[in-house]
């Protein structure tokens, strides 16, 4: 008998006009008794990870690195070519992993986000071994560069940009 009361209540609340179907549809589809906010959307940012091969040889800088060129002077390399460009939304609570050259992986987690900046956790792995684990606070649209992994006689530069 105790089990019939909730059932009757659910049936009573569940009957409605078509006008009731709308913004609350998602909520009505949720399991009963689960308090979920109507705007429970996970924050996300767009992340771009470029894979640049820096090597010695003929002086060349990929046109995509035009803004970065003057900041590369302190490196001993003079040939910079973009090998790949990864772009993906990074959702809070879900790790986004990029496979890059040399059997390495870069995983990015969105920790926090506000109008001005985001906090990202960036980890780099090689053959399952963690090389770096860092948390950075990135101003909207800013870029930072993870550099140094060896690759084919040179190194890899990984300019990472977060925008939203």
């Amino acid at each position, binding site marked *: 008998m105790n089990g019939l009361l909730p059932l009757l209540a659910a049936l009573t609340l569940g009957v409605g006009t078509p006008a009731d179907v709308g913004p609350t549809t*998602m909520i009505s589809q949720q399991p009963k008794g689960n308090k*979920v*906010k109507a705007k*429970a*959307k*996970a*924050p*996300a*940012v*767009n992340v*771009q990870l470029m*894979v640049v091969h820096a*090597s*010695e040889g003929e002086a060349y800088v990929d046109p*995509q*690195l035009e*803004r*970065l060129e003057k*900041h590369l002077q*302190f*490196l*001993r390399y003079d040939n910079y*070519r*973009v*090998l*790949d*460009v990864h*772009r993906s*939304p990074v*959702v809070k*609570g879900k790790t986004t992993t990029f496979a890059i*050259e040399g059997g390495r992986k870069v995983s990015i987690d969105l920790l926090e986000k506000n109008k001005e900046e985001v*906090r990202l956790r960036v980890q*780099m792995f090689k053959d399952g*071994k*963690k*090389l*770096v*684990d*860092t*948390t*950075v*606070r990135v101003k909207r*649209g*800013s*870029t*930072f*560069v993870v*550099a*140094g*992994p*060896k690759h*084919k*006689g*040179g*190194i890899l530069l990984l*300019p990472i*940009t977060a*925008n*939203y």
Partner: protein
Amino acid sequence: MSTDTMDLLDVLLMRVLDGEATHDERAKLLKLADAEPRLVEMKELRSRLREALSERASEAPEVVAEVLAALVIDDGWAETADLLRSELEVGSIDMVEQVMDSLEVGCEPAVRISALHDGELDPAERIELAQTLSRSAIMDMTDWADNGRHLREALSAEVSAVDLTDIWGLVAVRVGLTNPEEVPGWEPIADELREALREAATLTAQDEVALTAAVMNSLPRDESIEDEPTEVSASLDEQPAWIRWASKPWIIPIILVALFAIYQNRDLKEEQPEVQETVAAVEEPSSPIEAFVIASHNQVLIEDLALGDEVTVAVFQAEDGAPLFLLIDEGDEEEATL
């Protein structure tokens, strides 16, 4: 006109044409021409012949031209010549076919042997012809074929070794082109080619990146590229990477900035209430995912940094607003990469 008279007239005429006739022989030729019944009516011909023979005896007179001109005028051959010319122009007489037929008939063995030598006969003809040849002839032809092959190989080797790069430039000048790169009449074709290439060569940004990566990955690279050792670099290479970075003057303010950021982060964490957000749907960023241009002013702070074994990291920022660099030395090789 008797045969003897005609023979004498011909002989004298040949001597005149060769410039060997004496004065008496010329006079005799004129006398015979005047007496020749068929030439009696050809006054113009005899007149021109006389004028030609009256020239200096030491030079060959233009008898042929004079006589032919007179013939065209007086003998009525013009109509015949016109008919012959019209037949040739209309093409009702297949002269080429007739000439080739006569050649094939006349050169049958040689032509067929040549065709056999060049491998132009079908198997049945080759067998038939070979049976008619002696063994020595076949051996000779085999030797010639071998010699021809050796000659072709030698010529090919010589030609391939010759640099023909500048040949067209020389040829272009000889044929009157001022600019060897611009051949008159090719502009419309060049325009179409240019347009077709432009359409085919246009890549999307993603395709361009993929192509670049594919090309770069396919290029062989020397794994043992090393700097020329100098006294300074040699001494630096002996030190671990983190010591070299620590010795840089700019590392101290950067470390201070990093420590300050970590300290600030702790404050931030304490101030912010712990909110447990439920992942129900992805909040798509307002800006579409497209190529990001590296900003002119960047602001990135490192809050936390943990390293794997043997890994060293240096943090570097060239100037205010420049992208922050995390310089990683994986430490799996003796030589530092940065």
